[in-house]
């Protein structure tokens, strides 16, 4: 049996159910906590968060993967209370959204130290919360090119994944060959890695999807809902139908097992205004109706949000030397 760490304890992989693989309870760049313009009362944070998760659960959502890494406002005991009160499983991340969100203590750390930090959070716990991470977050700093610190974090993540069985999700799929090289050198099978945000507006033309899939990696269609049709879309937004057709090409070409889908929405953003009108429930309110209109079967939808996720978390992939 594969066990998966949620913030309130391990569950069997079979219990994950409908899962959104890349979301945020609340994300803020390190240092944003010093700027009062973003502050919210605890009442406001719960008011913004709880109804979205209750609705997610009503729609049939069961598991929420929080992709907020260390230093970005990750708050495990808050997640524990939210999970307990809504019944939604929350899986927390160790790792970093990118090298440019790692504060000095980690920016100057060795690969070995970073790996120890990630493994500790995956196996012992995060801070004093008692909750453990269930997934590893890595990412590319601003500029679409891996920086040396990004590469150290990727290498440490590979070692932590091999040591614990936890999979890796990335922020951005650009400069993928640098990532693939690091994972290859560390002996990590690419099935353990989801190259995220391959679907966002600013990455188009910069993602070597064939290279990633050819090497065994998974492609993240995980910014669904950041549509240019919104009243005030973010700079990484994309036209709704363009993103949808991009995903449909995978479904129609028999590569459904290579993709994972999410909305990357903030329930209650911490250090930025967020994007009005975008929530995790886009998956149920817009995307799934779009699938149905296009004739996508329930079985395929189930595979995207249940089967593929369970496969991603499962450690049945034979490791080298076994």
């Amino acid at each position, binding site marked *: 049996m594969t066990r998966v760490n949620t913030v309130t304890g391990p569950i069997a992989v079979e219990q994950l159910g409908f899962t959104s693989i890349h979301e945020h309870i609340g994300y803020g*760049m390190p*240092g944003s906590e010093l700027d009062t313009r973003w502050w*919210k009362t605890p009442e406001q944070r719960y008011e913004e968060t709880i109804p979205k998760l209750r609705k997610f659960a009503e729609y049939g959502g069961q598991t929420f993967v929080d992709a907020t890494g260390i230093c970005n406002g990750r708050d495990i005991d808050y997640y524990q209370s939210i999970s307990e009160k809504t019944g939604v499983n929350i899986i927390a991340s160790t790792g970093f959204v990118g090298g*440019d969100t790692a*504060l*000095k*203590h980690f920016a100057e750390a060795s690969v070995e130290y970073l790996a120890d930090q990630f493994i500790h959070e995956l196996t012992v716990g995060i801070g004093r919360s008692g909750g453990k991470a269930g997934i590893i977050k890595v990412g590319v700093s601003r500029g679409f090119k891996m920086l040396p610190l990004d590469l150290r974090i990727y290498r440490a993540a590979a070692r932590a994944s091999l040591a614990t069985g936890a999979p890796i999700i990335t922020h951005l799929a650009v400069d993928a060959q640098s990532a693939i090289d690091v994972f290859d050198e560390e002996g990590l099978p690419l099935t353990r890695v989801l190259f995220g945000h391959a679907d966002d507006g600013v990455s188009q033309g910069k993602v070597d999807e064939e290279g990633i899939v050819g090497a065994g990696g998974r492609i993240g269609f995980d910014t669904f809902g950041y549509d240019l049709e919104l009243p005030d879309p973010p*700079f990484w937004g994309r036209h709704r139908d363009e993103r949808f057709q991009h995903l449909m090409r995978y479904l129609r070409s028999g590569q459904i097992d290579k993709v994972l889908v999410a909305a990357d929405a903030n329930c209650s953003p911490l250090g930025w205004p967020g994007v009005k009108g975008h929530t995790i429930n886009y998956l149920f309110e817009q995307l799934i109706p779009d699938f149905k209109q296009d004739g996508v079967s329930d079985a395929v939808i189930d595979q995207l949000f249940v089967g593929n996720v369970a496969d991603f978390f499962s450690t049945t992939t034979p490791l080298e030397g076994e």
Partner: protein
Amino acid sequence: MSTTVNTVLGPVAAEELGVVAIHEALLSVVPGAQYAYDIDIDRAEVFEILKAKLEAFKAAGGGTIVDRTGMFHGRDLPLYEALSRTTGVHIVASTGMGPEENLGGYFLTPQTNPPTPWPAERFAELFGAEATEGMVLPRVERRAAAGLIVTTQTTAGATPTDDSLLQGAALAAKASGVALSFSAPANTLGALELALAEGLPADRVIVAGLDRAGAADIVRAVVERGANVAFDHIGSDERGQSDADLLSDDERATLVAELVAAGHGARILLSAGAVGVAKGHDAPDTAYDAVLTSFVPKLAAAGLDESSIRSILVTNPANLLAVKEA
């Protein structure tokens, strides 16, 4: 003219400060170390350690400690409030940040396209609000106002963001009436001019870290410009601090005597640069009372009379920490 000082327990009359240690650190945490798996910050333990050090400072004749670590290096306001109440030592906490390597991504790669680092005006707003409306307990509330605005430039040379931080700190100091303290090892005088160009009077500026070998000419230039110098590694040779370029206390005492003789006594500040509790970095085990216990006798031996010494330890810092009306 206002004569009150912003302490963590609120405004205090400047003449009540007593002997001030102006460049010290209470709890010093490398940014990010608070999240490290192998670093434990036991606040009860930190309190006990700092309490003992503050009591020793008080017993040696000290009245006020200034925590010069700024807003993002371990500052723990409720802890400092409790320490001040418990020990009777006035505690002044600071706002500001730097050098660039100590900053969070929020300031360096913001979620804008392109990710342009913060300009001076935004740092001025952030620091100025801490010096007037109160220092932040992150995402919870503002508490007492900051009593000093601090920044540090990268040792190897200022980055563009280091300069934005310094200019922003100077703007905030000018607008709030709270003094500025900065260190700029690579180009001290250039940095001083950068700060003064924002319209801040020179006598509201402290240049930190000038008790280094080869810096005597810079010290003279700073005081002749009307700004203040801090010799803030007092006791470093006694504790065997390894920085090869730090002056010995005897050399410091000679330099202080020279400045006093030249009429610059009002521009001198002294501090140990002690770190009470360090997390995520090494710090020499040192006491806040090094100036009082070991350096004052050297000043006397160098020919300073009691009133000159008292002016340096009490009057000069009181004048600087007193908030000026904008």
